[in-house]
């Protein structure tokens, strides 16, 4: 299935129904609120709101969830600019110059450029997604179990390298995630594994309770009770328009941020966070006046915001074309799609064209909706920031419980969410990243299945993984990543990942 006018028409025909238009608008609105509120990231937001899509058909559900996803990416910039608090991790870099602009009375233009940059990047990235996903899916149709197993292993290793921090810790989180993913009935032999008589664990540990526990509950555990001092700079609607100079200065950073963000978004790892750091560094290096960065340079807002939104849509390429999530958010999106009977992968675009092209069309529409929504409603979103966290966190806890319970109507899932919450809280204290763990849980059944199929195919010879060229390439990439990750441990030097982690903590 290639890109053609008919496919786009099919997509727009799917989206342009009153109900789907409403879901797209609703998704963008909720997503923006999720992005604006500190402590409710896109991951927890999607997980909590997953049950609201149960009554919808698959196309409407994915349109709503995708709206929440990129809406949250959009909304994160508001808190960064007005409060110097990133609504979600990818808005860390926007804090620096966005807040500096706000302090100088230029909050409006900073918000406007962030919205325009996000719109341009989002729309151009959908074009990239539209042209890249179908041929990639076609290519992946030739993958056998060894290629698929190596691809997933490579994806996990790249994720552990790109996430930042210690690669050994990240790899152990992947191993722990894979261990958790093993719990339940073995799909090849029917044996119950590590379920200790709990029938409810037969289907395994679901990704939604794991993700909500690790990201939602642990966030509440770590932040509840902290002092709630917030200074919010409130922009006026008439001050939103950027000057001609600011618009001109933003064109380059937005273009570069879009290309950079989209390409980095395809790679597993904290792509949307990394892309903003790379974009910021690149803009500062290319600027004739690098000393303005940190003091309110519009390029420092335009580039990272464009990169962030482009990355979030770039991440959908491997998810939709290969069925491989590149981060925890896309992992939850994958779980959400599966709940609705959609299995992303090489056959998805071919077998469910209405859903795929409907999603593409909804993204064009959603980006426009976000641009029109974010600017006029900014003062309403700012008022959301005035809700004290001591009121907010019990409500988030309540939505977490409903979100997790509703997936399978299971109290065991609520219990798993609690356990994962404690685990996530302790892992944060011990400086472990939890994103690789979620990916491990999601990918374990596919990795193990393809691994065992490969060994059966080769009569037990592990050499098949290196004798098949595509599989060998994936494994070489994985090996290079492990070696690069181990280099700072051996040489006792700081690499870019450690500097990135430090910058993230310092923001």
């Amino acid at each position, binding site marked *: 299935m290639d890109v053609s006018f008919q496919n786009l028409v099919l997509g727009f025909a799917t989206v342009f129904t009153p109900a789907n238009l409403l879901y797209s608008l609703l998704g963008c609105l909720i997503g923006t609120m999720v992005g604006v509120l500190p402590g409710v990231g896109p991951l927890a937001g999607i997980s909590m709101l997953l049950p609201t899509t149960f009554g919808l058909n698959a196309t409407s559900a994915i349109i709503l969830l995708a709206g929440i996803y990129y809406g949250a990416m959009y909304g994160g910039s508001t808190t960064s600019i007005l409060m110097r608090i990133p609504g979600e991790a990818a808005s860390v870099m926007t804090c620096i110059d966005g807040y500096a602009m706000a302090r100088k009375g230029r909050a409006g233009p900073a918000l406007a450029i962030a919205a325009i940059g996000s719109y341009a990047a989002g729309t151009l990235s959908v074009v990239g997604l539209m042209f890249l996903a179908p041929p990639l899916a076609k290519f992946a149709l030739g993958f056998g179990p060894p290629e698929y197993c190596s691809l997933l292993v490579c994806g996990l290793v790249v994720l552990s390298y790109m996430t930042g921090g210690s690669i050994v810790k990240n790899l152990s989180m992947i191993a722990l995630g894979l261990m958790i993913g093993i719990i339940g009935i073995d799909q090849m032999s029917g044996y119950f594994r590590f379920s200790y008589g709990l029938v409810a664990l037969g289907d395994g540990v679901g990704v939604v309770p794991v993700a909500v526990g690790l990201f939602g509950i642990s966030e509440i555990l770590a932040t509840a*009770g902290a002092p709630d001092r917030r200074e919010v700079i409130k922009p006026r609607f008439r001050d939103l328009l950027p000057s001609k100079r600011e618009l001109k200065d933003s064109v380059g950073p937005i273009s570069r941020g879009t290309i950079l963000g989209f390409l980095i978004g395809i790679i597993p790892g904290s792509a949307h966070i990394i892309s903003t750091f790379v974009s910021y560094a690149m803009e500062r290096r290319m600027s004739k006046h690098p000393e303005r960065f940190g003091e309110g340079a519009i390029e420092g807002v335009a580039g990272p915001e464009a990169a962030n939104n482009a990355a979030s849509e770039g991440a959908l390429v491997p998810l939709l074309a290969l069925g491989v999530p590149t981060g925890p958010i896309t992992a939850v999106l994958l779980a959400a799609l599966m709940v609705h009977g959609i299995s992303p992968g090489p056959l998805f675009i071919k077998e469910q064209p209405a859903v795929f092209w409907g999603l593409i069309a909804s993204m064009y529409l959603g980006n426009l909706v976000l641009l029109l929504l974010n600017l006029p409603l900014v003062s309403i979103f700012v008022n959301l920031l005035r809700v004290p966290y001591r009121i907010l966190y019990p409500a988030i*806890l309540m939505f977490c419980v409903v979100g997790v319970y509703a997936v399978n109507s299971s109290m065991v899932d609520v219990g798993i969410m609690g356990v994962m919450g404690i685990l996530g809280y302790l892992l944060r204290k011990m400086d472990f990243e939890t994103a690789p763990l979620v990916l491990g849980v999601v990918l374990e059944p596919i990795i193990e299945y393809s691994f065992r199929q490969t060994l059966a195919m080769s009569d037990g010879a592990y050499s098949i993984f290196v004798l098949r060229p595509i599989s060998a390439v994936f494994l070489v990439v994985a090996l290079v990543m492990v070696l690069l990750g181990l280099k700072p441990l051996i040489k006792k030097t700081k690499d870019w990942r450690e500097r990135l982690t430090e910058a993230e903590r310092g923001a």
Partner: protein
Amino acid sequence: MTIDRLSGALLVLLGLLVVWERRVLPLGTSQHPGPGYAPLLLAILLIILGAILIIGGKGAPPLRSIAWSEAPHAAAILACCIFTTVMMERIGYRLTMFIVLGFLFAVMERMKIWLVLTLVIGFSLGSFWLFDSLLRVPLPRGEWNF
């Protein structure tokens, strides 16, 4: 004791536990791996990574450097999670949320009683109406059908 050494030791222990618990699962052969094959490989990987953390963890921050200032709140929220897990199907969603939110707002956050009541009634009944009645997501009603 450093953070990395403790976490490495815990990973090694977990790996050993998985090796022990895996013994009831057939290992199979490399031609036809059984249900115990992947757990064993992963347990070995966990043990190796844990050992690396122990060996390389000398320079890591000490355990006492971890701040626990939010621990009382965290303990209360965890207690709420446990209470919800145990009680929600028995006494129903609305009553459970009423108690949990009431506890958090009134006891942990020391809010005024009228505000607590407004928030608790609004959140517990409002969310039930939104999910159960409007979106048709069945939530537990408990033994009293509430």
